[in-house]
């Protein structure tokens, strides 16, 4: 790692007149493989080193990054950054950072089986095993795309206030798209799995039977599925659907930088205002958190990319809007302190306010008890198409695996039920919350240049009362 170089950059920037300086040195390495229709399409490995530096001079902020790790290059870039900050201070909005405790820490997510030590032949076997299982499964899947990757990210953060954080976080990921054909119709399913840890996680995914199971379910949906009822019905949403709703309609609008307008020309702004804290959104059994500390999660970290200690944030507590997501800049603007939500995709990106793992906390009912209580409803287990407006109000989730519920019993599959609603209606419709949280993976996009960061989203199964499905 480049700890000495990062410390050098911070000290050099301060010496040149920066009021604040921070450096994030990163080293990452990993492998990736993809398979298209049974053919190993691509295989490769990456090793990357780089450093990202932020300085504040007279209230103006500059960010520079490079993979040229020499003191000479860094000196030149920092000189330019300090000069540019000094010049722009006359026209720039003043940026201040909220106070943060001085942290010094070193942590590592352990790998029981180090991905870097697994032979690449063994890695591609995982993909060929899926293909073999699908061939045996007698489901028509004319198009299949799978990718499997692993990466270890070593990071060292240092700032002019004395903060020093070292971390080692290993990731594994599987992404896929399968196209199922049945009776002349097709359906598609995208599956994404991301976790932090070693290769033992990939083994635990049991990809062959998982993918075959999804394919059979979709085939059955095409064969036996009927349209959703036209009248208002109860909707029982499983963790995958709950998760995307928590991410899109709670996590994003609670990002303080959006609320302050910093994302206006990119991911948009928000229906939320700081004055809405304390307003009721849902019944008292609804609690939504963002928590980077979930072991094994894709959004795992103990200190954020500004060196602030991470913690669980209660975004909705007892049904009431409770807290926003902050980095040090937004926290200062809204007269609070950072709750450790600053993340950067990599050394080339500035840290901005991000989610980690956003989920609904469990209630007391089992999924069976929730379904038992439904006279006429639709159970939506998974989804494909979704979107939401840039203020995070008007949202749509189109079901993939779905079933009709009649008098507490699951009956036939339902084809593509469309849940098109608003954030306010969604939350006021939550009538029951299950007792078991399920997590799903996603890549969250925000910022410019676009930063995609790994996250989890989830929750238990919930019941939404009296919804009109499309």
């Amino acid at each position, binding site marked *: 790692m480049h700890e000495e170089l990062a410390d050098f950059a911070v000290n050099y920037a301060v010496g040149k007149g920066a009021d604040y300086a921070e450096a994030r040195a990163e080293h990452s390495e990993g492998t990736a493989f993809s398979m298209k229709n049974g053919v190993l399409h*691509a295989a490769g490995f990456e*090793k990357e080193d780089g450093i990202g530096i932020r300085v504040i001079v007279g209230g103006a*902020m500059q960010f520079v*990054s490079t*993979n040229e790790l020499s003191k000479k290059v860094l000196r030149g870039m920092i000189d330019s950054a300090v000069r540019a900050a000094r010049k722009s201070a006359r026209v720039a909005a003043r940026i201040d950072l909220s106070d943060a405790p001085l942290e010094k820490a070193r942590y590592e997510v352990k790998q029981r089986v180090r991905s870097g030590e697994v032979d690449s032949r063994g890695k591609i076997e995982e993909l060929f095993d899926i293909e073999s299982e699908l061939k045996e499964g007698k489901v028509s899947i004319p198009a299949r*795309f799978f990718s499997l990757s692993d990466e270890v990210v070593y990071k060292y953060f240092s700032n002019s206030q004395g903060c020093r954080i070292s971390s080692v976080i290993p990731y594994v990921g599987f992404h896929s798209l399968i196209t199922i054909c049945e009776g002349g119709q097709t359906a598609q399913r995208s599956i994404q799995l991301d976790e932090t840890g070693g290769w033992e996680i990939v083994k635990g995914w049991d990809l062959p039977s998982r993918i075959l199971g999804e394919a059979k379910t979709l085939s059955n949906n095409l064969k036996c599925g009927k349209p959703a009822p036209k009248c208002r019905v109860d909707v029982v949403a499983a963790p995958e659907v709950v998760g995307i709703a928590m991410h899109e309609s709670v996590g994003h609008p609670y990002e303080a930088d959006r609320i302050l307008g910093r994302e206006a*020309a990119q991911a948009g702004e928000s229906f939320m205002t700081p004055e809405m804290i304390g307003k009721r959104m849902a019944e008292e059994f609804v609690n939504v958190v963002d928590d980077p500390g979930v072991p094994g999660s894709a959004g795992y970290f103990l200190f954020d990319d500004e060196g602030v200690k991470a913690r669980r944030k209660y975004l909705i507590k007892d049904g009431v809007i409770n807290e926003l997501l902050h980095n040090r800049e937004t926290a200062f603007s809204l007269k609070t302190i950072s709750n450790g939500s600053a993340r950067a995709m990599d050394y080339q990106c*500035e840290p901005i306010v991000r989610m980690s793992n956003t989920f609904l906390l469990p209630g007391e009912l089992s999924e069976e008890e929730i379904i038992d209580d439904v006279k006429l409803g639709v159970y939506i287990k998974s989804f494909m198409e979704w979107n939401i407006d840039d203020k995070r109000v008007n949202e749509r989730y189109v079901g993939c695996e779905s079933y009709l519920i009649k008098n507490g019993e699951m009956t036939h599959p339902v084809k593509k039920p469309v849940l098109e609603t608003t954030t306010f209606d969604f939350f006021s419709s939550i009538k029951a919350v299950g007792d078991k949280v399920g997590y799903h993976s996603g890549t969250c996009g925000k910022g410019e240049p676009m930063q995609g960061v790994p996250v989890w989203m989830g929750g238990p199964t919930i019941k939404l009362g009296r919804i009109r499905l499309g």
Partner: protein
Amino acid sequence: MGDTMDFALLEKILRRARELGADDVVAIGEEVRGWQVKFVNNRIATGMSSYDNEISLFVSKEKRIGVTTIKEFSRRNVEESVSKLLRFTKKMQPNEEYAGIAEGPFRYKVVKGVYDGRIGKLEDRATDFIEEGVNAALAEGAKRASGVLRYGMKEELLVTSNDARSSERSSDMYFSIRALADKDASGHKVCCSTTLRNFSPEKTGARAGRIAKMALNPVRGDIGRYDVIFDPYPLANLLNITMDSASAFAVEAGFSFLRGKLGKKTASSAVTLVDDGRLPHCLSSSKCDSEGVPTRRNVVIERGILKTYLHNTSTAKRYGVKTTGNAGLLSPKPWNAVLSRGDYGEKELFDEVKRGLYITNLWYTRFQNYEKGDFSTIPRDGIFLIEKGELTKSLKEIRLSDNMLRMLLNIAALSKKQEQIVGWEVEIPVITPHVLVKGVRVTKPT
């Protein structure tokens, strides 16, 4: 081996890979300098600059394929990376679809207007551009404006084991501004260029500001089927997806609604859609693809008929055609999407609409089924009701929920004037006029 990225280094890497047993080798070096200034609520927020260089390396060995990127050019690291890549590749399974890389050498013609050395020396002019854009938006009625100014310079070198050798410099500029006249009234515009000529943040800011003012006091839109005029900015989002779908890789992997449509009607006869890697002044134009094949103009949809997919050497062989000069390091990729102009003036286009919508921006386009083309997308910023050719109301909270093929088939008219667009959700440059699409399905929360 040296420690600077130049032809000598690329050729040494190539020779070393061949010595270690590689059949085909492609080495592409890139040196990139980039700058960005973000502005928020009329004020500069953060300045950014970056400097990176890397060599992307592709090798094949008995149809086994491996790739890596070398980012540190010390003799030791380069040797380790090349030898590791060969060891790694030899362990892979053969890719029976792989048919090699194109045979060089090639003669290249320079692509005009893709480099302007002044862009690397903008300095204070960057702040001026932002002030001009923001002030123009405010003068038109906006209360605040946010966005970015981005500019960069790139130098790219390519060598292949089949005797291709190319070098190219390019530059780019991009300005994105979202003007807000109220919480619910906004307009978003972009401008982009390869040179300082034709780059006008002031005009762009004014256009965003005008839309924001027109969008004041929106009412909720109604569901139904509407004739929709798409501004170039939102249409670029959909044409980017269309051209991505023309890659033979997307077709085979299930990501394309153009699968099985070669030679068939996939759009109205008013539509001719071209991928043109040699288009002067276009942000992605380049004289060759990643195999070193000279780029060319590919007519993908001609008067509504799908004529070709985009190919590299391997996919072209499977389809019994020649490469279209669209090779990426692993898969075919589009250079851009150019929708041919029509013969309508902008006013004439609006006059065609008795009752319809004018959409100025889209985002969050997501598919239920890529192969069928079923999708929805969300209009954002100014959305307007058109009645008898006039904009009569500002609307909000609607969604377009339709099918890509149906929409392409329902394109009824195109304007005369084209615009080059890139954006937050438009990754390849799209050159398009305003377009009228008949009968687009609009939904909203129930």
